[in-house]
């Protein structure tokens, strides 16, 4: 579903945010992409979702060449960014239908998909409300709804549960598992919650200083009675990192 070879990104300021990432994600996997702040997670994700052009390397995403066929890649993937994308001051239903139409759906199909996706995420009745009247958990589920309207085969989630209470996080995990079980969807997500990666992901990739430094199933990595937090700190160290120094938006 995803295959990258030597994927790299150097920003204008000369910052090497991602340095030759090689990775493979199989269809139907839920893969956690972990790393300290500024490690290159968001930059990698923004490249894989066509929002940022790689400096070098190649990638196939959802069966299409990332550089040569970006529009087809977009047609097949869903992406939920850290900031989401909930507009304020307007009912969400119209915005959802607009998003569906931008994915090429006709008006009737878009309306039908909105109803289906909203129901699937347990958001019935809330789609007529304004974004600012919803809770953080509800907004996050609407973020995901925006990304599911066109039935993507691959879903990218950038820190989907940051700032949510434990109930909302657990609820979101259930929805992600359901998407994989019922639709066979592949999910590639970043998170700072290692318990989340442990509970949710089939496999994790750990990136640091722009390079993949470890990968495997959580159970494989947790050797010697260590938790995934222990493994993560052992690999990436305990020194504090500059926030957003290497993200696609911050650099």
């Amino acid at each position, binding site marked *: 579903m995803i295959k990258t070879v030597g994927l790299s990104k150097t920003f204008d300021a000369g910052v090497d945010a991602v340095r030759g990432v090689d990775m493979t994600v199989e269809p139907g996997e839920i893969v956690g992409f972990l790393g300290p702040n500024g490690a290159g997670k968001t930059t990698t994700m923004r490249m894989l979702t066509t929002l940022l052009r790689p400096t070098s390397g190649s990638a196939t995403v959802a069966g299409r060449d990332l550089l040569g066929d970006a529009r*087809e890649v*977009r047609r097949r993937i869903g992406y939920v960014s850290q*900031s989401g*994308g909930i507009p304020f001051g307007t009912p969400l239903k*119209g915005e959802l239908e*607009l998003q569906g139409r931008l*994915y090429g759906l006709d008006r009737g199909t878009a309306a039908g998909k909105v109803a289906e996706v909203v129901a699937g995420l347990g958001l019935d009745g809330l789609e007529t409300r304004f974004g600012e009247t919803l809770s953080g958990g509800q907004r996050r589920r609407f973020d995901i709804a925006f990304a599911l309207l066109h039935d993507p085969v691959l879903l990218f989630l950038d820190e989907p549960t940051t700032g949510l209470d434990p109930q909302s996080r657990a609820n979101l995990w259930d929805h992600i598992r359901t998407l994989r079980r019922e639709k066979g969807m592949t999910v590639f997500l970043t998170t700072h919650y290692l318990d989340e990666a442990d509970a949710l992901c089939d496999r994790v990739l750990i990136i640091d200083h722009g390079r993949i430094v470890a990968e495997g199933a959580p159970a494989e990595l947790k050797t010697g009675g260590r938790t995934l937090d222990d493994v993560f700190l052992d690999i990436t160290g305990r020194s504090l990192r500059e926030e957003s120094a290497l993200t696609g938006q911050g650099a």
Partner: protein
Amino acid sequence: MLRDTLVLFRHGLGVTLRQKVGIVVGAIQPMLFLVLFGPIFTTFGTWETLVPGLIIQLGLLSMGLAGFGVVFEKRSGVLERMRVTPASRLALLLGRVLNNAVTLVIQTVVLLAVAFALGLRAPALGLVAGLVLVVVLGISLAALSYSVALTMNEELFAPVMTTAVVPLILLSGSFLPMSMAPGWLDAISRVSPFRYVLEALRDLFQGHYLTGTVGAGVAVTVVFTAVALTVGSRVFNRANA
């Protein structure tokens, strides 16, 4: 691309028409000039000279600051959510810009209606031709405004654009024809495309259609719009826009 443009345009228009306050606020300043400055100006000038200037002022204020909208869309992640769809990037720009153009048409028509009540007398053909010219100019201004909003620090956009708009209004000759200006000021104003469009508007409002001034105004508008849309679509295409 055309389909995506229309989809976005219709959606944006619905939002704009629901939020009528935005249309009114954008037109307040030229309307105040019309009502409070117009009666003074017409003691030595004509409504047909003043009103085109106020329309240019309206265009610069309303369309030049159109980028405010996309600043909020960028901050909230809405723009990025749309940029990850297969929709044409040019359509993401044009849909917004056309919506702004409708706002400008409504504001201009209201301004003209009030101006007529106060004493403006211009031929219908001149008014329609002038409106077309202004709308095309407005489209280019909005495209440029979006480009600036997407490339500039969000906090700087408002002060920079409001500061830039004022000299552009003055140099276009909105309030007094630049032929009255000293040579150096007249020379500077010739760099501004808005001067040519304004002079064309004044000719059109006086029923002079096939003049060199109108030709120059049309040519400047076409070139300016082509440049603005090219810049705008490139910025919308860019990675971090």
